[in-house]
């Protein structure tokens, strides 16, 4: 690793030099994400898998250097200018980027993933339904708290669509039961604040029964705080996504269960869908233009199998 650090500068230069030299004879399909995270590593693995099955295409996986709409937009414009044939994007800010996305969609077939932009001219959305995922979280809570209880949620950006849909989904399921979600605290994706939010929540509400981590890094922070304060096992944790700590907690039984998306499938199925579409086969696009890859509940029963699958995918 030290050696790696030392060669960083060299590698960066090399990387710049390499991007210009892509083969132009194959049709290029681009998968543009909204920022850097482990989550997208899985999608990248799915894209790699798809590449094996699509030798006639050049599949590209692109990270914008910043999770900003403008930066992502420029990246897409550059890709279109460089001649890619289709783009799949997880838009940073789908709501206010309608025009910009339409511009891309007017030039090449545009697909959305992760967060949809239904008002644009996108061909289809492929990804999870965050509302469904939220509902599954609600089911986990209902099951873990048969006598009801107070829950508090933690999330990065409470106003973001994916966060809101997950929260609404969960609320719709627990509505009418004795389980209630009393508050959701945001942290602006700052892990220090994420952890402090859990600490403060615990200090302010010592009688809390359940904590929900809506973004992938929230459950580990909940887990750590409860562990440090000796409340692990006393307070139910409902999780999203597959952070290693989260899976460890599930295995240990201290986290009730976690709702996972299948970014691998988005990458894999998404690329194949795009290739098919370019070849003229439009049958895979449903009428509502939503290709939903269902989210899964991972609990103690299936966690080992899930982890093995993850390892295989990221390792491969």
């Amino acid at each position, binding site marked *: *690793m030290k050696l*790696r*650090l030392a060669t*960083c500068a060299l*590698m*960066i230069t090399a990387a710049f030099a390499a991007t210009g030299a892509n083969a132009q004879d194959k049709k290029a399909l681009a998968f543009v994400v909204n*920022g*850097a*995270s*482990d989550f997208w*590593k899985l999608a990248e693995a799915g894209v790699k898998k798809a590449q094996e099955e699509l030798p006639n295409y050049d599949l590209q996986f692109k*990270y914008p250097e910043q*999770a900003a709409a403008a930066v992502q937009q420029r990246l897409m414009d550059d890709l279109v200018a460089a001649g890619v044939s289709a783009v799949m994007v997880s838009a940073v800010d789908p709501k206010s980027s309608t025009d910009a996305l339409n511009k891309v969609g007017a030039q090449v077939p545009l697909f959305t993933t992760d967060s949809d932009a239904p008002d644009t001219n996108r061909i289809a959305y492929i990804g999870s339904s965050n509302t469904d995922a939220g509902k599954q979280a609600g089911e986990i809570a209902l099951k873990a708290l048969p006598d009801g209880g107070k829950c508090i949620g933690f999330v990065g950006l*409470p*106003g973001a669509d994916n966060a809101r849909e997950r929260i609404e989904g969960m609320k719709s399921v627990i509505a009418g039961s004795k389980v209630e979600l009393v*508050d959701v*605290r*945001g*942290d*602006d*994706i*700052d*892990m*220090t*604040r*994420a*952890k*402090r*939010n859990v*600490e*403060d*929540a*615990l*200090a*302010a509400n*010592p009688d809390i029964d359940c904590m929900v981590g809506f973004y992938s*890094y929230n459950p*580990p*922070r909940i887990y*750590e705080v409860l562990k*440090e*304060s000796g409340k692990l096992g006393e307070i139910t944790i409902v999780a999203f996504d597959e*952070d*290693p*700590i989260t*899976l*460890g*907690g599930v*295995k*240990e039984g201290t986290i009730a269960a976690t709702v996972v998306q299948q970014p691998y499938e988005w990458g894999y199925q998404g690329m194949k869908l795009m290739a098919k579409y370019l070849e003229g086969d439009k049958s895979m696009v449903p009428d509502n233009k939503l290709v939903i890859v269902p989210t899964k509940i991972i609990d103690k029963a299936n966690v080992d199998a899930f982890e093995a699958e993850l390892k295989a995918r990221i390792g491969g």
Partner: protein
Amino acid sequence: MNRKDLGLLILILVVGTVVAIINPRFLSPVNLSNTANLIGLFGIFALGQAFVIISGGIELSVGSIIALLGVIFVDLVSLGTVNWSVAFAAVLALGCLIGLVHGLLITKARLQPFVVTLCGLLIYRGVARYYTDDATAGFPFGASFPTLEWLVAGRFYGIPHSLIAFIIITIIMAVVLHRSVFGRYLFAVGKNEEAARYSGIHTSRIITAAYVICCGLTAVAAVFIAMYTRSISPSSHGNFYELYAIAAAVLGGCSLRGGEGSIIGVVLGTVLLQVLQNLVNLLGIPSSLNFAVMGSVILLGVLADQQFYRTRKSVARAAG
């Protein structure tokens, strides 16, 4: 303690009293202990920033250094190839080296501190992201480093060790800044570099030392913060932390023109910032208003201070 520090202390006490009245849990041992922990984490690098600001400069790369050194530290420790103490020494040395480079670029190459450290902000962030391939650096589930965890995240009768470290560093830095020859030279250089040079002070060495101290303390803070979050996503870890440091230093009476400031002021500034963050959560104020609350209270405090000072001056004048 001068007038400004006293005003800040009063502001902290007023805010604290109001919060405690609305939600008495503010004073619960758990909450105080948690807040103390964060004061320790943010205070350590705010002290460093104060040295640079007193020298008449600014260090904008603090957040990026915290991310870079954090991922390196977590990586070295979780791989288990080296002992954590070696990793700590390596990170500290790297921090000091970064400070040395900044100092030399500013004093020898005569670049503006703003430019040098702004470039640092971009470079270290980029390197940190490249180092982990943009992945989150963290410890595997169940990984445990008992001594290290006890040292940096442990609590002694509820007092977090980060606060104890912060207090020790504060005392050392207070002696360095307010009692040592170096501290006096630092104030002299920050206030009037020319007069300092005319008095035979090696001004470029003093300025460079300020950056070494700043980045060295930032390295210490980086380790504490890394062990607090236990997981670092290099693209967002430590974002804007330089602003917390600058805000704490300036609140504490450091002048951005250099040559002014005190350690006690910076400590109080850090305390206020963390109490404000705590308040947002405890009073159930929507998280999105976090920064707005922070900005408003600081602004009101500064205004009240100014107003109070003016009134007192005019009263004094009337009496005289």
